[in-house]
């Protein structure tokens, strides 16, 4: 995780387009400026970042399913449950399962787990749109490669 850059997953470990599932890993950093404020003397990963990690994991699944032709934008979070505190240095596994791929939208169910057990879960809905710019698409392709995905090559 690079919290300051809003990069909340480190690697996609597995993706199965047929089953509509994805599994990603993320290591919560030991140090981050975010922990200076959240909270002084008791650093824990903010819950909104757990939700964002599920959105990014589900978003990568949608990118694969849409063959990197459409960008998923977070539109709705349903029944989010933040069940445990997550301390700096904790390794996390984040999974998402496709619930429905609609016309212009997608619905996933996300989970965050640590060695201690289930950390968070939420229903995540996306709007899917053509990429607003080719530059953004290329940056997303590059980022997907860094995560271990195999998107189409650059034009």
């Amino acid at each position: 995780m690079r919290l300051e850059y809003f990069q909340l997953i480190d690697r996609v470990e597995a993706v199965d387009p047929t089953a509509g599932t994805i599994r990603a890993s993320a290591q919560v950093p030991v140090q981050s400026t975010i922990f200076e404020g959240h909270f002084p003397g008791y650093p824990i990963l903010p819950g909104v970042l757990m939700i964002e990690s599920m959105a990014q994991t589900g978003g990568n699944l949608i990118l694969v399913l849409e063959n990197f032709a459409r960008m998923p934008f977070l539109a709705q979070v349903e029944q989010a449950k933040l069940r445990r505190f997550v301390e700096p240095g904790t390794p996390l596994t984040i999974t998402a399962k496709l619930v429905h791929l609609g016309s212009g939208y997608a619905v996933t169910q996300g989970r965050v787990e640590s060695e201690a057990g289930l950390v968070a879960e939420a229903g995540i809905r996306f709007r899917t749109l053509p990429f607003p710019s080719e530059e953004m698409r290329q940056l997303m392709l590059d980022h997907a490669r860094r995560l271990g995905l195999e998107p189409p090559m650059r034009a």
Partner: protein
Amino acid sequence: MQETFNAVADIISETCNIDREKIRPESHTINDLGIDSLDFLDVTFAIDKRFGIKMPIEKWMQDINEGKGSVDDYFILNNLCSRIEELRAAKPA
């Protein structure tokens, strides 16, 4: 048709918190019922699930933008329900 309308009206009422009796076949989802795009996303998902279809909203919007149809053709409930029934009929058995 009545069955489809009743199901869609129930979905809209529940999803968008609109009194069921205000939802009529001639109601326009946007102009009369005031459903915004995020609520319409919820309605679309519920309809897709309820009928096992995938409403091609983007294709419809494209047709509207290209002048191949009007907003009323798709978003007045009677017309929307007709299109849902067409999609249900076209579904593989």
